[in-house]
Structure formats: C-alpha cells, structure tokens
C-alpha cells in the first residue's frame, strides 16, 4: 500500500516542479498552405511551429510584426485566430536502417501501410554541409550498371552527378537502374563474406511526381529485389508545396545517417526542377521578391546547400547524390539547369533525338562529363574503356559530316563502322544493370575485334550472348576480374580463351 502512495507522491512532486514556458501567437491569415501568424516573438528561422490538432509548420519568414509559416499537413481545419506555439525544435525525421524497404512522406511517416517504423534516432532536416577539412576526395567507385556511364562517365562515392534531359528521355530509369545495381552488388558482396565489402544503401526522393509514376518506380525496385536496400521518400504532385520543398532535405538527413555511421549511401532527387517550382510557389505566397523566371533570389542556395551535403568523409562513410533535372526542349541554359550544373561534379546529358533513334540509354557522350569520377574508376574499366569516350565523340562528328559527302576514304569508313559498333554495344534495356566485370569482358571483346565481322544489327545480341556465356560457363573468371579489378596478363589470356570458345558457339 505504501508504495502506491509513494508513487502518487512522486507523481505530485513531478507535476509541481513543472512550470512550462511557451511562446505563442495567433493565425492572422492562412492561404495556399502558408499561415501568417501574429506574435511568436521567439520563433527562429526554420523552427517547427505547432498548430492546433497537432499540425506542424515551419517558420520561414520572420518579419518585423508577423511570422510566415508553411504548414506541413492538413490546413483545412486551421482558421484565423487559432493559437499557435513555438516548439524550440528544428524539423527532424527518423533515420536508420529501420527505414530500409519503406515508403515514407516528408516527415518520415510511413505511407506504405506496412505498420509503424521503429526508428531509434532522429536527424534534423536542415543541416550544415560538412566543411572542407573533414572531406576526403572521391576515390571509390559507385557502379551504375549502365555500361555507357560506368565506362565513360564514371561516378565515385561522395560525388554529385546530375542527370539532365527532357521528359521521357530515361532519367528516372537510369536512377532506378543504379539503385537496382547497388542491390545486386550488395547481395553478392554480403554473401561473399568479404570483411572490407561496403554495401551502398539507396534513398529515392520523389518530388512533385504523379502517384502513378511513384508506384511504378516502387514496383520496379520491388520486382528487382532492391526495395530492401532502399528508402523511398515520396512528396507527390498532390502533396502541398511545403512537403515537396522539404522532401529532398528529409532524404538527405536519412542519407547522412548512413554516412555518419561509416556506411555508404546513394540518394536520388527526382527531380529538382519540380522542387524549385514548389519553392517558387511558397516564396510567391510569402511575398518574397522574385527574380529570373519568377524564382526567388535564393533559389541557388536552395540547391547548393542540399547538394553540398553529399560528401565522402574522413574516417566515416559517404553520400553520393544523383539529382535529376528536367529540361524543356533540351535547353540547358535555363535558370535552374545552369544553377545545378554549376553545383554538381558533372552531368549525364540525355538527348531526345538519341532516344528516338533507339539509342537507349540516350546518353550524349559529348555533353556528358564526370569531373571527379575517373579517380574512382577501376583499372579494368580504364584498360578496356579508356579511349571510348574520345572515339565516340569523334564518331558523332564524323557521322554528321558523312551525311553530306558520299565518297569517304577508307580510314573514315573504318572509323564510322567502329563508332556505330560501339553505339550498338552500349544499347541497354531498362531495368537491366550489368555488373562491372561483365562490362569489362564485353568491352575487352570489343577492343580485340570479336564483334568486327558481325553485321551491325547483331552486335548487341552478340554482346548479350557473350555475357550469358560468361555467366553460365566462366563464373570463376568473372569473379577474378571483379576481385582483382584489373586485367593482368593471366586474366587476359583467360579472356582470350573464353572469347574464342564463345565465338565458336555463337552463330549470328
């Protein structure tokens, strides 16, 4: 009996101790997901503001006599005169491995109907990017599984590589294939028991997309068994602009958790054009002055502070970012594209013309670069693919000329022929990333002229058959290429034997 009384006494003591201070205000006006509040004299920039009914908002405009808050969530029940209060907290989201395999909204709440997420930690959504001293240069590869990219525009862990192109040129497909490839590599690596193996976890942030597209992406990841290594942050087009504005930062916080805890992560922002539009909408409603294309003056900072959070950290892990930008009629000189091009470490430029000609993935080799990735490329790929980019760029130039003149000299003809073979070789269907060791074998055979005698239309099929042959019959050799990551004399002689053997079985 006495213990019960003690408990009650303790409870009373606890209650008496607590004088709570809060800073309050009232809603003066509310429109388009933005609430203008009187009071809130202590609100800080980016602080969470609590509205009635547990709805949260963020203080974005601290004016002399009012505070502009974007509301995250249902505004329909809020009205003029409602009391609001500061929370003293910055917006945070759950982070950690518990989120893998899940679809969450901007605040990290599950939206996939698979039950609550048991997150142990929270990270603030807005975070200062790592400084110069703690950063390490990019030197470890991140394989996309797309041959044209891994061989010519290689990406390293901690890099920020932009995927840019018009609508329907395969931007999302490249991003999703890259995630699928990480899952494939993770499976093989984790099964091998190699202590030094570093898996890559992926975060896919969908901003302003149609729900049907998001569902399709989730379906593709699930079908490929990649969902268990992936977190999906969804802020679809129907979501309010505040959620769309914040979703990339939420995703970045989830990625930072992996980086801070010594792991590697990959984050896709699909896409930042729609993100900028959501931010423009908020800024216009907040009556901030607008500039070029009606974007507010700090739209550069919007993306720079986001992308700077991708890094490789000394003694920790890395966060690689693949932002996506959608252009209109291939115009890369519009405001948002030029901004993001200048922030990233290179871009993969996709062209509608190529896509329509059937060159898919429609990577424009001439306009695509990776400024830091070659330091991360493995030796094997360098050995077989080192000159390809130059050759292909030259081929495009020659091909443009060849349209005008009919009589070409033998050397030009040979160059054109070789170029079109390379183009054929690089064609790759969606959802089918190729492991790096198979890429090396494919390109090695190219370099040694194994496809030269074939009619052009058969080159790609030959490469597919070669890879099948290697997978079913030369698994040890593939493993050797993968683990050594370079082609030494021994491997090359084995490659020769294997390719000769394949050639005798392959009839075009």
């Amino acid at each position, binding site marked *: 009996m006495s213990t019960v009384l003690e408990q009650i006494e303790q409870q009373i003591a606890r*209650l*008496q101790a*607590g*004088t*709570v*201070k*809060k*800073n*309050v*205000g009232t809603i*003066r006006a509310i429109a388009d997901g933005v609430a203008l509040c*009187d*009071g*809130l*004299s*202590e609100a800080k920039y980016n602080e969470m503001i609590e509205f009635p009914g547990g709805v949260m908002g963020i203080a974005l405009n601290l004016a*002399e*006599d009012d505070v502009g808050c974007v509301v995250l969530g249902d505004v329909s029940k809020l009205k003029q005169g409602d009391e609001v209060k500061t929370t003293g907290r910055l917006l945070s989201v759950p982070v950690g491995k518990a989120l893998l395999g899940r679809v969450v909204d901007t605040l990290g709440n599950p939206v996939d109907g698979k039950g609550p997420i048991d997150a142990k930690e929270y990270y603030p959504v807005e975070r200062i990017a790592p400084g110069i001293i703690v950063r390490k240069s990019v030197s470890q590869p991140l394989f996309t599984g797309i041959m044209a990219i891994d061989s010519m525009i290689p990406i390293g862990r901690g890099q920020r590589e932009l995927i840019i192109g018009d609508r329907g040129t395969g931007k999302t497909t490249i991003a999703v294939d890259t995630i699928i490839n990480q899952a494939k590599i993770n499976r093989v690596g984790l099964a091998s028991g190699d202590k030094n193996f570093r898996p890559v976890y992926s975060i896919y942030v969908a901003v302003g997309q149609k729900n049907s597209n998001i569902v399709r992406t989730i379906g593709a990841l699930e079908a490929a068994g990649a969902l268990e290594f992936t977190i999906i942050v969804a802020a679809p087009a129907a979501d309010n602009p505040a959620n769309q504005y914040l979703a990339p930062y939420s995703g970045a916080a989830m990625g930072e958790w992996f980086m801070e805890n010594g792991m590697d992560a990959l984050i896709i922002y699909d896409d930042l054009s729609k993100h900028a539009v959501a931010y423009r909408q908020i800024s216009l409603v907040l*009556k901030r002055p607008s500039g070029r294309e009606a974007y507010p003056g700090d739209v550069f900072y919007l993306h720079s502070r986001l992308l700077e959070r991708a890094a490789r950290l000394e003694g920790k892990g890395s966060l690689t970012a693949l932002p996506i930008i959608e252009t209109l009629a291939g115009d890369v000189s519009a405001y948002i594209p030029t901004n993001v091009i200048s922030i990233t470490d290179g871009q993969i430029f996709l062209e509608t013309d190529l896509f329509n000609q059937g060159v898919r993935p429609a990577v424009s080799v001439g306009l695509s670069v990776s400024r830091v990735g070659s330091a991360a490329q493995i030796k094997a790929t360098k050995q077989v693919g080192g000159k390809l980019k130059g050759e292909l760029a030259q081929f495009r130039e020659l091909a443009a000329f060849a349209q005008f003149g009919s009589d070409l000299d033998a050397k030009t003809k040979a160059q054109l022929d070789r170029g079109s073979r390379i183009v054929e070789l690089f064609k790759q269907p969606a959802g089918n990333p190729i492991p790096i060791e198979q890429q090396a074998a494919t390109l090695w055979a190219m370099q040694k002229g194994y496809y030269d005698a074939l009619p052009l239309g058969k080159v790609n099929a030959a490469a597919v058959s070669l890879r099948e042959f290697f997978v079913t019959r030369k698994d040890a050799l593939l493993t050797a290429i993968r683990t050594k990551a370079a082609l030494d004399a021994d491997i090359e002689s084995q490659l020769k034997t294997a390719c000769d053997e394949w050639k005798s079985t392959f009839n075009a």
Partner: protein
Amino acid sequence: MSSARKSAELARQLFALTLDQGRLAPERVAAVLQWVEKHRPDNASAVLRALKRLVEAEVARSQAVIEYAGEVSPAVFAEVTATLSRHYGRPLESVPVARPELIAGLRVRVGCDIYENTVVSQLAALKPVS
C-alpha cells in the same frame, strides 16, 4: 511598394508616435486617431487594423496577465509581477483574472510568452501521446 506594405509602414510610423518614453500613452493614441480621421490616408481601415495589432501587442507586452484558480493571495500576484518585470527589464502591470477551469495553479502571460503551471496543463501533458 505594394499598398499593403505601405499601410503596414504607415501603421508602424503612427505606432511609434503613440509611445512616450517607450510606453504606450493613451493621449498620444487619441492624437494619432484624430490625425487619421482628419487626413484619411489611403486604405485607412487597413492602417488602423495594423495599428490596432501593434497596440494590442504593446499592451500585452506591458502586462502580466495572471490567470489563476483557487485562493491566491495578492502578495503572490505582486511577487510574480515583480519577478517578471525584472526578467523583461520593464515595469509590468499586474492583471489578475480568475479562471476556475484551471482547477489549481497559475498561468501568466506577458506578450507572446506564457508561463503555465496549472493542473489542467499537467493533466493535458499526462495524456498518452496518440
């Protein structure tokens, strides 16, 4: 400048005129109102609404509104007000308001700040988080 911003700016200027040594002076408020009546600035009603908000906020800042339940001695009100005056560095007017629905305890409001230690607020805090 947009008209809304112009009204806000004018309201701020008028508000500055209502203060005498940093404190709201009723005769000055009356003078300002007379001026508005006479000169009819653009959007006079918007200006007055903005002015009202500023004055309201100023009044709230200069008062310690003490809501209480149960028997509270005047000495407590005086002490609370004195403490808060020191804290904010300006003299506050003590405005006690009886509020039986608080059950027991005090809720003090100065400007946008609320200090609360009442049974209702603690009961609310006890509610299991949904």
